[in-house]
């Protein structure tokens, strides 16, 4: 009888241990991102640090090109076998939350997020007051210019107005050297749209107001005409503007190799410029977006990224994912009171959006002239519109602007097409 009891206890203990082990090893989470190999290695290192203290959680990182991120998220990331965590662009959030692919942030983490991030960034990660992701990066657009080319063209300071901008673009254009004054971008929706939107807001206009497109405004008309002038006068060469699926390509090559005088781009491409230019990166400077005839001050557009959790993942994976994200974005995970996420972002020249990260990296942000040009712009930046059908709206406007770049549409036709298409797309997606 005693032997039977001993055997039964042993069996019970083994059963408990086995079940505990099974429970302990259950949290197998994956993180889907579009970051490059160097940054992925940093994220993996942070995950390894976390799993040392949390051996019950296994974290793997999956990386895809930016051009495939949304498709990957929709085709596999949204299922129960898809990525548990994904880094997403705020413009995608309305559609992903409508399709119930992203889980709301648990209350405790949501309260912490609301207390430690700027309200505007929290708003961009929320739909109907519900927070769906922990914000991490914030990107803003500014004018980048090549100081050596400015010097050679006899230009002493970056343009402050559109008139100065056009005059400088003319001086910087030299067909004999295959050199363009201002670099546009094509074949990449954000690359086409964001510089245009930055000029539009710096002219006092907007893409969307109160959920309705306002591309039929006077400010938009002037912005379309500015683009038309740049193309017609040859200050911008669309053949030098192509981007590829990794958001690199000829447009970057031409700026890096000193064949583009000015370009409007976001802060995140600092690492790409450094990698492509080496010591010559010191030739690049940042300035506010020139102010248009209807604008009152230099403005720009901003957008944010956030990490979301797959709503269809098992509950234990979701719980483990939120715990990891809370740590990754918290002030204990990085150096000197910064978050590990902030540290990863700063390695790419990306501005972290957590308030305490701004303080932790204050010296570096103020000491880096390239980034300082962006942080100075941030206060007057407008958030890129976050609406249902945002991706379709962006791709439609991309096509119209590219049509104008290649001389297929006049400024007036482009403006009408853009407004008509945007009205139809936003109305249809809002249904």
């Amino acid at each position: 009888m005693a032997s039977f009891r001993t055997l039964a206890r042993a069996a019970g203990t083994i059963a408990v241990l086995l079940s505990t082990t099974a429970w302990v090893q259950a949290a197998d989470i994956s993180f889907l991102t579009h970051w490059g190999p160097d940054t992925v290695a940093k994220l993996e290192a942070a995950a390894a640090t976390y799993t040392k203290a949390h051996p019950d959680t296994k974290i793997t990182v999956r990386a895809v090109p930016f051009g495939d991120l949304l498709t990957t998220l929709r085709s596999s990331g949204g299922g129960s076998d898809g990525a548990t965590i994904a880094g997403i662009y705020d413009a995608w959030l309305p559609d992903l939350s409508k399709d119930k692919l992203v889980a709301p942030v648990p209350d405790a983490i949501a309260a912490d997020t609301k207390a430690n991030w700027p309200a505007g960034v929290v708003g961009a990660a929320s739909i109907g007051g519900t927070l769906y992701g922990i914000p991490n990066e914030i990107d803003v657009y500014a004018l980048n210019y090549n100081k050596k080319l400015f010097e050679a063209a006899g230009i002493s300071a970056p343009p402050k107005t559109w008139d100065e901008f056009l005059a400088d673009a003319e001086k910087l254009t030299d067909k004999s050297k295959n050199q363009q004054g201002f670099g546009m971008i094509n074949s990449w929706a954000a690359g086409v749209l964001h510089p245009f939107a930055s000029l539009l807001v710096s002219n006092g206009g907007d893409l969307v107001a109160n959920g309705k497109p306002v591309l039929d405004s006077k400010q938009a008309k002037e912005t379309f005409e500015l683009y038309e002038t740049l193309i017609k006068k040859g200050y911008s060469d669309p053949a030098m503007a192509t981007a590829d699926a990794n958001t690199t390509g000829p447009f970057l090559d031409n700026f890096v190799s000193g064949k583009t005088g000015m370009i409007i781009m976001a802060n995140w491409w600092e690492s790409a410029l450094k990698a492509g230019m080496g010591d010559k990166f010191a030739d690049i400077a940042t300035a506010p977006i020139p102010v248009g005839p209807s604008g009152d001050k230099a403005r720009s557009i901003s957008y944010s990224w956030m990490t979301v959790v797959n709503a269809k993942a098992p509950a234990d994976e979701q719980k483990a994912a939120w715990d990891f994200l809370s740590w990754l974005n918290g002030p204990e995970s990085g150096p000197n009171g910064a978050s590990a996420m902030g540290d990863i972002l700063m390695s790419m020249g990306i501005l972290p959006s957590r308030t305490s990260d701004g303080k932790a990296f204050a010296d570096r942000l103020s000491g880096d002239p390239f980034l300082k040009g962006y942080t100075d712009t941030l206060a007057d930046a407008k958030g890129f519109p976050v609406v249902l059908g945002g991706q379709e709206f962006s791709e439609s406007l991309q096509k119209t602007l590219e049509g104008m770049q290649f001389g297929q549409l006049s400024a007036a036709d482009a403006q009408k097409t853009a407004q008509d298409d945007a009205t139809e797309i936003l109305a249809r997606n809002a249904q």
Partner: protein
Amino acid sequence: MQRRQNAQAAVMLAPATGLISVFVFVPMLLTIWLSFQAWSTQTGFETARFVGVQNFIDIFSNSSIGRDFKAALLNTAAYTALSVVIILPLSVLLGLLVHQKLAPGGIFLRTVLFATYMVPMIAVALVFSKLYSPTEGPLNQILGWIGIPAQSWLSSPQTALWSIVLLNVWQQIGYFTVLATAGLTQIPDALHEAARIDGAGPLQRFFTITLPLLGNTLLFSAVIAIINSVQVFEPVALITQGGPVNATNVLTYHIRRVGIERAQGGLGSAMAVTLMLSLIVAIAALFAFARSRAVKP
């Protein structure tokens, strides 16, 4: 007895035909059914709502949906036509070079040509995106040496589709040359010999013997080339993303964008059904053309 044999045959055929039904007919029928529904690909089929032919009206309308679809359909048709028109004659020409016995190197040439077919598309895309670079690409540098001005290749809506076609021809030509060579080996030498004795020159022999007897091979090649071309996806996804100005936005890429990226499953299915019908019509027309040529004396 006969009934029993039929039953046994049905039982034995059932696994194979069942698998074909599950993996071929069910997805096709499902796509056709979805083309009449409003449905988000991120939700279950139970959320699909019947909308009749509205999706088909939308994709042929003048809205942005319709304009983009019609442009993608035209791009696909142009890509397919250009690919077939270039690949077929070139494969016959190269097949003749491989097949000829007047000079050595036929087998070497066939190996070199077929090697391009074995290179993974990701490698081809990486190499061609650099070759086509307008300012720093080797192709423009080579053209410059012989006095031809730099071309815009993938950077212009006028030339981007052509550039993707050239990439396709470069990669596919080896496969079609092997097909043409196989067809040429089936033509008896005695026919050429007899024609030569009768005084027929090389061109006359080519047009009266070689080309007519290659008819079945060329028909097969044309069908495969059309199907391959209509399914083009990788070079567009890897290099151009459908741009610039949607000049390389072919239907497979556009359906992926609409059906997956935007989750508009009903519209995407209507586009897929239209593509399938277009392909059926094109292949049927090709067979009809071949049949009409065959009955002529």
